[in-house]
């Protein structure tokens, strides 16, 4: 649960939150591309650190830390898997080289998690839906997207209540064979599905009552306009891409073990 909290939108009044999701999306794409471009510790560490000002500007340090902590478990697994596979299947001359390479790949994972976390923490699904809308995605799809996001916490809470209600009637969810475990979930799944259907019917009734489909030319309370900050972010992303391509083609990046003379 705590890991997902690190990706759940948090409403804060910050300049990062106000940025255009499209600009932020370009930034995330660039981050992704650049992170994949390198497999050495130094550039990836730079990438990890370079994003931090954004986290602080958005004032989501706590949630961001949570996502990093949540990812740490995976990071360790990735690290061990890499060490293991490089040791047996790679042809590295020393163990320290293997460790360094594995560490770098783990770092890459962290960089990706960091940029995704920043994106989702600071981009309200409302604005994301709007960005989709303004990118000519059909409105029905955008609406389905924001409504789904809106009802995730509601459904999670409902599932918990149903579980409690059945546990109060003596249902034991833990233990038993695999088949028994699946059977145990039937008393939870059926009410969940029945309620979801009932809920969707009520939602449809409400939508109809609010003039759904009245006109083809639907308007929107908000409009996304790229501002100076958005252009700056895109410029920064673009610059980073160019520099990275240049560096990866022309600069020999030293290894840490080489620097430390191990």
């Amino acid at each position, binding site marked *: 649960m705590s890991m997902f909290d690190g990706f759940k939108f948090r409403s804060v009044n910050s300049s990062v939150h106000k940025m255009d999701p499209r600009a932020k999306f370009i930034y995330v794409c660039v981050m992704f591309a650049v992170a994949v471009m390198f497999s050495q510790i130094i550039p990836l560490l730079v990438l990890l650190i370079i994003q931090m000002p954004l986290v602080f500007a958005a004032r989501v340090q706590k949630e961001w830390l949570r996502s990093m902590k949540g990812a740490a478990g995976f990071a360790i697994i990735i690290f061990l898997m890499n060490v293991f596979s490089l040791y047996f299947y790679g042809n590295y001359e020393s163990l320290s080289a293997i460790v360094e390479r594995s560490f770098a790949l783990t770092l890459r994972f962290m960089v990706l998690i960091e940029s995704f976390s920043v994106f989702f923490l600071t981009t309200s699904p409302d604005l994301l839906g709007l960005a989709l809308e303004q990118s000519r995605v059909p409105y029905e799809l955008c609406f389905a997207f924001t409504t789904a996001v809106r009802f995730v916490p509601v459904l999670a809470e*409902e599932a918990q*209540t149903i579980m409690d*209600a059945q546990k*109060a*009637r*003596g249902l034991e969810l833990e233990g038993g064979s695999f088949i028994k475990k699946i059977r145990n979930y039937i008393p939870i799944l059926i*009410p969940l599905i029945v309620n979801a259907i009932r809920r969707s019917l009520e939602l449809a009734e409400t939508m109809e009552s609010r003039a759904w489909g009245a006109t083809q030319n639907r308007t929107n309370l908000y409009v996304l306009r790229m501002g100076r900050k958005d252009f700056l972010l895109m410029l920064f992303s673009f610059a980073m891409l160019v520099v990275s391509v240049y560096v990866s083609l022309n600069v020999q990046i030293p290894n840490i073990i080489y620097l430390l003379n191990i």
Partner: protein
Amino acid sequence: MIRIQDVFFSYPNGVEALKGVSLEIQDGEFLAIMGQNGAGKTTLVKHINGLLKPTKGTVTVDEADTTKVSVATLAKKVGFVFQNPDHQLFSETVEEEISFALRNFGFSESAIKERVNWALNLLDLAEYRKVSPFMLSGGERKRVALASVLAWDPKIVILDEPTIGQDSQQKERLRQFILQLNHLGKTVIIVTHDVEFVAECKPQVVLMSQGKVIAQGSAEKVLTNLEVVTQASVVLPQISQLFANLKDIGFPTEVIDVNEATDILLGRLGDSR
């Protein structure tokens, strides 16, 4: 006996729902836990059947610490009827729905048969035995949910917001049913913010606000105390509002019932005549 001692509880998201609640509920007591939504009422009663465990403090049911026994073990003693019947109904027939818990608790087939019959009759559902619970009306579904809990004859029965969405006839039936259960010697605990319903049932009342118990006592005492009732964001029952207004001309204030009100008013009028 249920003993709740200095219980604190925080949800994983950090919300502190209970802040030091202590309460003793005797066997055979009829208790209403009242307060506004979010006061911690449901959180508190979920501690009694072990669905929630205190962050600090202890809850014991008949001397058994709820942290040391499973929910299933506690549930046998503590029946919990949830607010919305649709959160528990899943079977193909009403009969199967009622036998679900009995099977979980390992009753024999013959005992199951007997108890299902008993519960069906108790709640006037015999004609729906083979009907799908999903085909029934809201009020009937509520009764099926109630029957499915009472079937195993728990000695403590907790009802979470039983009057929500019920019309006044259904409420009256529910009132009589609850009194009947209590008469059979069961401990009955209702969680509600329906003041008029409580004024008619006249149980012991525990008033909660912001995770704390702010008053307890008889319904007449608690529901006529404007100060605590306001603090809990509940309202006075209509009759007690009336008597609060008449206080200045020498009327008693602890009146919540229409019949009692009639007697007092007529008595007073007899005096003045």
